[in-house]
């Protein structure tokens, strides 16, 4: 029996974190871990070793790109695929984020069904 994939959601907004968690758990059937800041996310990624990370871009103190770079710099976490979630919709912004080396850049606001499908497809997981 295949183990349930675990996704770490890092977002400073409680409501969004909850909506994403419910979406991924109920629609995708994934196990979701959460962190409300980049710092906590880094720690949780290292200790919990999730299968993927959904990372918000605009967060206080440590933003998404900085958190991603820290994840990449850490041997314990650099293998974990990261998907960025951003409210920036400009193509240039998305390209700039994509150039960081993340797996995908998804935009907010999102439809929960679509978000789950995009995460599944991006990570190559069978839905």
């Amino acid at each position, binding site marked *: 029996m295949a183990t349930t994939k675990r996704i770490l959601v890092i977002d400073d*907004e409680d*409501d*969004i974190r909850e*909506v*994403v968690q*419910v*979406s991924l758990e*109920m*629609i995708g059937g994934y196990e979701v871990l959460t962190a409300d800041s980049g710092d906590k996310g880094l720690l949780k990624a290292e200790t919990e070793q999730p299968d993927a990370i959904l990372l918000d871009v*605009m967060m206080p103190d440590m933003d998404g790109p900085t958190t991603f770079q820290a994840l990449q710099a850490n041997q314990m976490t650099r293998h974990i695929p990261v998907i960025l979630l951003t*409210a*920036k*919709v*400009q*193509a*240039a912004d998305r390209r700039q984020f994509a150039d960081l080396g993340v797996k995908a850049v998804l935009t*907010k*606001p*999102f*439809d*929960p*069904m679509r*978000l789950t499908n995009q995460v599944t497809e991006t990570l190559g997981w069978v839905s």
Partner: protein
Amino acid sequence: MLEFSNKPSTANSMLSRYYLWAFLMVSVLLSACGVVQGVDIGTLWASTDRIDGAIKLLTAGVSLGAAVLLIQLRNQITERKQAEESLQKNQDHTRLIIDTAHDAFIAMDTAGQITDWNPQAEVIFGWSREEALGRSVADTIIPQHSRATHKRGFQHFLTTSVGPVVNKRVEITALHRDGREFPVELSLSLLRLGGGDTLNVFIRDITERRAVERMKDEFVSMVSHELRTPLTSIRGALGLLACGMLGPLPKKGQHILDIAVTNTDRLIRLINDVLDLERVTSGKITMQKQRCNIVDLMTQAAEVMQAMAEKAGVSLSVSPLSTSLWADPDRILQTLTNLLSNAIKFSSSGATIWLTAACQGEEVVFQVKDHGRGIPPDKLESIFERFQQVDVSDCREKGGTGLGLAICRSIVQQHGGRIWAESVPGQGSTFFFTLPLPRETAALPAEPQDKIVPVSDDSSLKIDRVLVVEDDLDLARVFATTFQRHGIEIVHAPTGQEAIQFCQQQAPDLLMLDVTSPDSDGFPVVAWLRRRDHLRQLPVVVCADRSLDSSEQERLRLGPTLFFTKGRTTPEEFEQRVIGLLDQIVRNGGEGSYGNYQTHTSH
């Protein structure tokens, strides 16, 4: 209160008045003498002493003649004085305008030395007029790091009368006396006078404007984020409810929820469009222009809209055009999908929408044609305005924001194109937009100047491998653009001497030469390289403004060499062949293995 001195002109005027009275008095005296003499002539003529009469007649004539000459002279002097006064007044007026202008005014001679410096220049740059006059402009207001480029550009302008900043409004970084750098906007014009050329520059400190722009950007970004954050939660929560994941809803409840979802989506689109339009129209978004294939753009647009078309029962018919554009592909795709989306919305089930493109002269014309309800003639223009739709209910019923066509127009206009609609009410509409076709290599837009690394800049030695010998800065930028699109930086050498200096320090991977005359700098550069063992097989790209004969070609050839004649090669072909040559260089082992390349020579 504004004041200016007019003492010199008052003194002149007084002097002129004294002269005038003196002349009048002398004229009156002489005239009187002449009249008296004339009367005497009559009396004397009757006498026998005719000689005496003749003398008196002569005297009278001379007196009258002198009087007339004096009056004429007085008139001339008066006119000259008036002209001088008028000129002085104009000069004072011009000086007053310059001295009270809110912009700095700097004039310089062809040696680059300051010949005029107004009070606002004193304020902006911190140098008094007395201190600034006679100084070099470059050393006074140009930051150290840009000085070499400025001087080179100035020399280039003096020899060619062509320059990237002449007769334009450009923004550069300037230097204050205290060493502080700040942004300025300047407009430069050349005044050709008999006494020599003068370059006049009006300069405006735009530090505050930049700060406001930054604040506006931050505000837009903040609003964007702050609006989207709650919307993300709302849309997500509604979506979870609507998809039934949290349990079934009664039919009426589901319907109400669908309304909430639909309108949340509409609000999201509206926010996106408002922000997008603001950024596009204000120029905050620079069109990321690149070479893009029209076939790809049209096919991609149709693919994006296919799901919407299927849902509406509408067919999309695409007739792609196989040619390339110099455009921002994301934005052109946005324009095409927007027009297709409108066409789908206003087409009835079973209808077909045509997307076509055709080359017409120097532009390509895109068409999106539908057989919908059409547009009344009085709305054909206004639909491209913000929040203007054919019917006020369209926003609600069709789910549009009323901003899509305004965004399309901004995008097309920023590409130098036009957009319009033609329609027969009841029979359908056709939306057209044009985009200019790239004509030749030189037609490609320039990259910002700082992308070109001058040879004299030490940093160039670390990263640049393609050496461009080109005295035309604009054309050098075109070349830079071509290479930079492929992640290759260039070193720009405006003269052959600078090219040789560079090669003495580092071997380039490829040499690019602009050959404009039989004594062009390219020939001695190649001759010099030929005498160096490690450079004699260097790949070369030659751009000539005429067809080179075989002996000239031979003199310019080192390793594999491409020859282009300007105006006869499209930008695409130029790029394709040059990049093909570079690919070959890489495949053959990179630096130090020039001799293994297959020669590609073309005319």
